[in-house]
């Protein structure tokens, strides 16, 4: 394959698809998604994954381009919005903002809240734009490469998606993989797509199978509703640091002067984003740590050093674009939120994978371009509403929990106008709450539900080819690409097992010292 033949790289094809982004409707959707995402991100307890999951039903009634624009804008803005509560309250809005809270809140406490917020959004913008350009130029390259994939390769890619998220997103490899297997089974409930045979229908509510949206809302939203109420009737006293006015130009100048932290953050964010399952939390913390290592002011980190905020925020936003590269080209999401976005693509009949840019190039490019424009909107809205958004966090958990519950009920119902979807959402949600209390993560389970049909159809097709050829083992387990993918599956599991063993040794050493 000649690299020069790759359309996105050579012809900068993305430039031809800005038209649908600059229509009045698209801009209104992008603005709404950005403002909503910033507010949702600023609210502790509302993760970006849950926010995007709750938004998917709304997109069902839109065109695919508009629906995806809304989800993309909300995804990027919730990651950035999480920094607002991290800085003003020291409560990260999302795990990706943990590192931001370390120096951002210290700056706010000494009266530099506005400066910290401005630096945060400028850094988020820098990281976000770099990440989107990586997405723009890398996606067609990988898609072109993946065009030669057959059923056996696609089967292993689906399994790889489940094992990677199962291994990396969970603290226990066994529980992560087990959650993925449960998700794959849930995807099998209903009528078999080839012969129409009933499978595992043990309740009338399951006759239509488990719809992705009901599963997404149930698995991500319902456990959070219950977690918000775990404290019982406790008073929700939140002390918000007051924000003093600060010149935006000074914040821009300070961010540019500390380009080393921004460069470290962007590079680490891009690399972490490309690794499926790693996520923004790892990107932010690793970038913060490396920026401290290379900084002449390393002793000031943790006491309100702006370099800490710059590194963390460029990193967690730079990972957003690259995390979509494996999603759009291979159907393997790079993060739990990307897994939810995959659900959003599927309900619009868009199957990500090697053929995406051939079959739905206009939608895919318009979506990617909207992410780029979304970064500018995130910067503009972020700079002007950040201080005001802090008041959102004052919404008491009982109101928030009741609101999410009702929104979940209507969201699950609205997609197919089916009461069974509401029942499925609730049962899955309650089950996930109890499983999460025992260390099971919802992300691999959701991915199993989403990738189950893809894995099954390719497995069945592969079996037909194998039976006419050299047999099952030879078809699925030989050939360079098959072996490479199997090695990746095994490596993802082995890496997590080793990490778990290392963590266990570290904990027992800590115990011995104590």
């Amino acid at each position, binding site marked *: 394959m000649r690299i020069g033949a790759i359309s996105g790289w050579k012809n900068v094809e993305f430039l031809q698809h800005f038209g649908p982004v600059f229509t009045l409707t698209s801009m209104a959707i992008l603005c709404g998604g950005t403002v909503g995402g910033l507010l949702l991100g600023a609210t502790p307890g509302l993760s970006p994954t849950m926010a995007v999951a709750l938004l998917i039903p*709304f997109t069902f009634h839109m065109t695919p381009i508009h629906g995806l624009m809304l989800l993309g804008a909300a995804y990027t803005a919730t990651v950035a919005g999480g920094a607002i509560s991290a800085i003003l309250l020291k409560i990260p809005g999302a795990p990706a903002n943990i590192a931001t809270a370390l120096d951002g809140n210290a700056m706010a406490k000494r009266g530099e809240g506005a400066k910290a917020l401005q630096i945060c959004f400028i850094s988020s913008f820098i990281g976000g734009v770099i990440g989107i350009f990586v997405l723009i130029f890398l996606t067609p390259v990988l898609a072109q490469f993946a065009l030669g994939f057959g059923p056996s390769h696609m089967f292993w890619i689906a399994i790889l998606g489940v094992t990677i998220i199962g291994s990396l997103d969970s603290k226990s490899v066994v529980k992560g993989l087990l959650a993925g297997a449960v998700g794959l089974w849930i995807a099998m409930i209903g009528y078999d797509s080839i012969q129409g045979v009933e499978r595992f229908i043990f309740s009338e509510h399951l006759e239509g199978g488990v719809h992705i949206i009901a599963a997404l809302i149930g698995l991500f939203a319902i456990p959070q509703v219950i977690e918000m*109420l775990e404290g019982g009737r406790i008073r929700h006293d939140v002390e918000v640091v007051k924000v003093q006015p600060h010149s935006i130009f000074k914040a821009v100048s300070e961010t540019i002067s500390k380009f080393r932290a921004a460069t470290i953050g962007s590079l680490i964010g891009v690399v972490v984003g490309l690794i499926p399952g790693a996520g923004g939390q790892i990107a932010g913390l690793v970038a913060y740590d490396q920026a401290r290592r290379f900084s002449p002011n390393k002793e000031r980190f943790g006491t309100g050093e702006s370099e800490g905020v710059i590194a963390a925020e460029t990193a967690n936003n730079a990972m957003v674009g690259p995390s979509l590269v494996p999603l759009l080209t291979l159907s393997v999401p790079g993060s739990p939120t990307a897994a939810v976005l995959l659900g959003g693509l599927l309900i619009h009949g868009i199957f990500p994978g090697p053929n995406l840019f051939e079959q739905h190039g206009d939608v895919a490019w318009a979506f990617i371009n909207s992410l780029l424009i979304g970064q500018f909107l995130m910067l503009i809205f972020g700079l002007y509403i950040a201080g005001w958004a802090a008041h959102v966090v004052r919404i008491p958990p009982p109101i928030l929990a009741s609101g999410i*519950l009702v929104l979940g009920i209507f969201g699950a119902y609205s997609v197919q106008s089916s009461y069974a979807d509401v029942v499925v959402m*609730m049962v899955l949600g309650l089950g996930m709450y109890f499983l999460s209390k025992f260390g099971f993560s919802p992300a691999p389970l959701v991915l199993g539900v989403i990738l189950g049909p893809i894995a099954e159809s390719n*497995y069945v097709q592969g079996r037909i080819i194998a039976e006419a050829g050299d047999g099952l083992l030879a078809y699925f387990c030989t050939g360079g690409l098959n072996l490479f993918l199997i090695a990746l599956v095994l490596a993802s599991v082995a890496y997590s097992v080793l990490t778990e063993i290392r963590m266990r040794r570290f904990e027992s050493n800590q115990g011995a010292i104590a």
Partner: protein
Amino acid sequence: MSEQPEVAGRFQQSLPAAALLALGLWVGYTSFNTEDPQPYLFPQLISVALVLLSGMALFRAFKGTNRTGAGVPLDQLGRIAPAIGLMLVCVFVMLPELGFYSGSALGFFILFSLYDPASHKSPAVWLKRLVITAGFMTLIYVVFALGLQVQTPRGLFI
């Protein structure tokens, strides 16, 4: 509030593992005991994975080497039980009997009131709760019924 243990005990850890093992065995039994195996080829693979992984999780729970998951302490279970009970009543009784808007409004109001730390004796507080519920449900009606044109089952009032 009592302090949560970092990791749940062996008994609690073995409960989800045993439940998932039972699920895996049932999926395996159903998938391998069928006249036409074609639709069950992939579920057969899944059942093997389920049984193996849940067996490992159960073994680790018995050995006490499961290091993740704090479990659900009894006092915490007591605090969330009303919420879970209400959610189930809301979905299985209120929505079908009262309709989506009335059922959800009642669910919202009861859940909010149950966990609201403000006094239950003050009429002003109850009025505030009613206003918040009405405001939120109006928003939901505008978005879903008028905006997205979703037809929900009708019941009491609307």
